[in-house]
């Protein structure tokens, strides 16, 4: 009986331990930190710029008018131009290379094809660009060169709003043509290239604060554009506006055009009792109120004006049409020299724009009609261009060209953006997206390497692979002059990289040291294991005693 009891007891204890043994592999399986393998080496290659060369190729087709008096060798012209432009592009480039750091290769190859333009007189009445050949590809431009027909001695350049320009040369001579064309091309592209190089070579440099990059919003595939009509005091003036028609009529073309880069969703609101937080200065003798540049940063009453968008999680661009209250009107903006700004508007970098209007308040009610809104919307669109990073080609080009050349630009069509500008924006955004995606992926790989407890699920791995794939595709597309595809892939790359980086499963375990694990295991397992261990110990002791007795 006694013998039997001991056997039964041992059997019972063994059955507990068998269960625990059965649980051990499950313990291992259920607490392992799942880490899908990320392509660290590949990310490293990208971030060191070993994996790719960025190229932003441009191609020019030059139609040279066939003038009887002198003949110009088209083939020579092309090769000479290519050489001179390439050498001028590379001035900066070689300087960068000399500072000893690793060369990040970004190139801007130029291809030029010159063609003889025989019946130019029939094709062209000066200023009538519509009849000329057009190109539909980003990165391809057509220049038409013809002798100056006017009495004006200066060389005249007309840059169209499609991808073409007409150059009237004052002296019909190969070297003059060469110089003018190369000047023009360099002046049109130089600032863009400088910006791209800056992006790529020193993406995080804060040494020189650049106005451009401060003003432009961080890239997002979608922005929320909010138009707000702010009424200072509705008790003496009620305002309304025909914003829907105005947006349809003036803004919609721009929205459609830019949608290739970022989608814009537009909404509007009217807010009453939108008071300023400060008193504007009063000019007693002329009886008006004014704001100085120092006051402008305080203009937005962030606490009370309900401008935060609840509609979407995308970045918001705010445009405010402000109507001051009776006690503060008319309200103007003065520049630092004390002159009243003509537009009465200002731009807030990376935030939006503000226009102040002082409407007629005798009737006690004012409706901003479609006609009135036209000028307002044109200011808003200018501000929107700045915020989205559309650069005025002409202001930059005018500075770069030599004084004897007069340059004119065809005004943008109702899309508010010319093809030159649009192409330039696309190229900048591609460069920015590629650089940002690489930086994000690099941060991700650093984070994963540094924190061994971090869970990396399969979908993160997939996203990283897809992001790298899209980066590679984007670079190949750039190389092949397919800018639209390159933009598409760079957008994809940045979206994937960011969704991987900000994935909630990544952040849940950011900090989980080993001592936490003890705190989790101890309260349950110590009480459970004590009786089991004691029982085991006693059995072993009995076993030894029995052995000795025998």
């Amino acid at each position, binding site marked *: 009986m006694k013998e039997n009891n001991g056997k039964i007891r041992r059997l*019972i204890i063994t059955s*507990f331990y068998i269960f625990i043994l*059965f649980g051990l592999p499950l313990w291992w399986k259920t607490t392992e930190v799942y880490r899908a393998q990320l392509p660290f080496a590949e990310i490293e290659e990208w971030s060191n710029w070993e994996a790719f060369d960025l190229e932003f190729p441009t191609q020019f087709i030059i139609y040279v008018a066939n003038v009887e008096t002198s003949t110009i060798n088209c083939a020579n012209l092309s090769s000479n131009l290519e050489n001179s432009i390439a050498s001028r592009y590379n001035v900066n480039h070689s300087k960068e290379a000399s500072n000893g750091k690793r060369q990040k290769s970004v190139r801007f190859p130029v291809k030029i094809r010159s063609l003889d333009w025989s019946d130019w007189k029939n094709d062209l009445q000066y200023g009538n660009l519509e009849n000329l050949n057009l190109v539909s590809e980003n990165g391809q431009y057509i220049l038409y060169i013809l002798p100056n027909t006017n009495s004006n001695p200066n060389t005249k350049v007309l840059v169209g709003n499609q991808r073409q320009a007409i150059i009237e040369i004052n002296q019909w001579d190969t070297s003059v043509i060469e110089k003018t064309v190369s000047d023009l091309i360099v002046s049109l592209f130089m600032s863009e290239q400088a910006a791209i190089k800056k992006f790529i070579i020193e993406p995080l440099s804060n040494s020189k604060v650049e106005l451009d990059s401060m003003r432009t919003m961080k890239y997002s595939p979608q922005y929320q554009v909010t138009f707000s009509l702010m009424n200072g005091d509705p008790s003496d003036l009620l305002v309304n506006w025909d914003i829907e028609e105005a947006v349809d009529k003036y803004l919609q073309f721009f929205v459609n055009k830019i949608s290739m880069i970022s989608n814009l969703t537009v909404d509007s609101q009217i807010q009453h009792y939108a008071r300023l937080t400060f008193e504007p200065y009063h000019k007693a003798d002329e009886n008006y109120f004014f704001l100085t540049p120092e006051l402008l940063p305080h203009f937005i009453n962030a606490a009370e004006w309900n401008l935060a968008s609840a509609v979407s999680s995308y970045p918001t661009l705010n445009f405010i049409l402000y109507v001051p209250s009776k006690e503060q009107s008319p309200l103007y903006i003065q520049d630092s020299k004390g002159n009243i700004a003509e537009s009465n508007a200002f731009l807030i970098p990376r935030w939006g724009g503000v226009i102040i209007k002082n409407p007629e308040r005798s009737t006690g009610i004012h409706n901003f009609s479609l006609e009135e809104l036209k000028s307002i919307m044109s200011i808003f669109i200018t501000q929107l261009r700045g915020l989205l990073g559309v650069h005025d080609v002409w202001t930059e080009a005018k500075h770069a060209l030599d004084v004897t050349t007069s340059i004119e630009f065809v005004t943008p069509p109702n899309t508010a953006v010319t093809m030159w500008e649009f192409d330039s924006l696309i190229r900048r955004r591609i460069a920015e997206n590629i650089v940002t995606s690489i930086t994000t992926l690099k941060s991700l790989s650093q984070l994963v390497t540094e924190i061994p407890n971090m869970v990396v699920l399969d979908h993160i791995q997939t996203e990283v692979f897809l992001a790298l794939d899209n980066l590679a595709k984007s670079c190949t597309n750039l190389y092949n002059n397919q800018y639209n595809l390159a933009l598409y892939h760079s957008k994809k790359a940045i979206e994937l990289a960011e969704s991987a980086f900000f994935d909630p499963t990544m952040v849940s375990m950011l900090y989980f040291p080993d001592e936490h694990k003890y705190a989790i295991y101890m309260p349950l397992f110590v009480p459970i294991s004590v009786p089991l261990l004691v029982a085991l110990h006693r059995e072993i002791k009995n076993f030894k005693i029995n052995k000795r007795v025998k």
Partner: protein
Amino acid sequence: MSSKDKFTGVLIFGAAFAVRLILFQFSNITEILGSRVEIVTPVTSFTRLTEGLYLFENGVPPYDGGAFHQAPLLLAFFQLLGYLPDIFTKLAFILMDLILAYCLTDIAGIKQQLYYNFPKLEIELKDNEIDPWIVAGFYLFNPLTIASCLSKSTIIFTNLSIILGIYYSLKYNKSYGMFWITMATYLSFYPFMLILPLILFFTNNAESRGKNIKSEIFSCVGLFASWLSGLLMLSYFLVGSWDFLGATYGVILLLPDLTPNIGLFWYFFIEMFDQFRSFFLVVFQLHAFIFMVPVSIKFRDHPLFSIFILSGIMAIFKSYPSIGDASLYLAFLPIYSEIIKYMRYNFLTTNIFCYCSILSPIFYHLWIYAGSGNANFFYAITLVYTIGNIILLVDATFAMSRREFDIWNPDLRNYEIIQK
């Protein structure tokens, strides 16, 4: 049975029937009980069953709604009941309770015959055995049973299957016994652990019945496996897909629904770090099953007692326990009425049950409706309830062991036993 016995039985069953039928007439009582978290759980709720039934009858896969987690055969049963007037659903629940109680009386009777030749304590020789009708009475008039029945909790199907499984096993009807325990496993998974003591019913007396122990074990396991695959196939043909596996056993095992109940799981897994969730699920589920083998070995001569202990463990450590589970295992206690004199904490456990019955609704109200308490209030009560159950089980185990010891060692009866 004598005519007096029969009279007692009719009285008890008639009164139990009447009480239930009358209480069923108060629809507000049944509604309140049907929504109490202590009584119905996501896997036994009649409301959820109605939802699943509605989807099923309208040609929508019943598990698509994500609210219904019960076995497909229940759908078929209630669809058939649906053709009858509403009162028949209530009658079905009452009837099942009565059948269960009637089986209990038979089980008690068979048990008393089985133990007839067992040695007894001297003082027990004079006493009469407990009247089996009283055993049924204890079950039928247990407030937990009545509440569970009135709430139309489908746990009654599991309980009835378990009892029928025991009943037929005690009658050595192997295929029926295995069928009903398979049915219970099929309905709520945990009764699987009762298969060991049931097999012991067959093996313990195998030789005297002229059977081979090994072949008994194999035939039991074989019957269990074939019944189970049969039931699962039937369910598959009923709902047309295997979705029900994830929606029923998946829910029981993986605990996606953290509705509060009187168990230990919900609070723990609300607070759990996600990283460790799967690990502790494994630990908790293994913990429920870890007692299956040791208890069966320890009480290998008393399989019915093993069933009592194991169904108690089930009622405490399953993922979605309700008072219906407790009512089942408490029904076994009167069958073993001879151990009650050895139990030391009867007063304590009785008080704990009363205490929990009163405070649990109050604390739940404070937490959910009044907002003056938090989840810890209700969880504290579930802990107390669990402790009460555990004390009762430990006490019963002790009493059983001590009684057996005293029977075999009558001279040591007056000594206290100390574990060293």
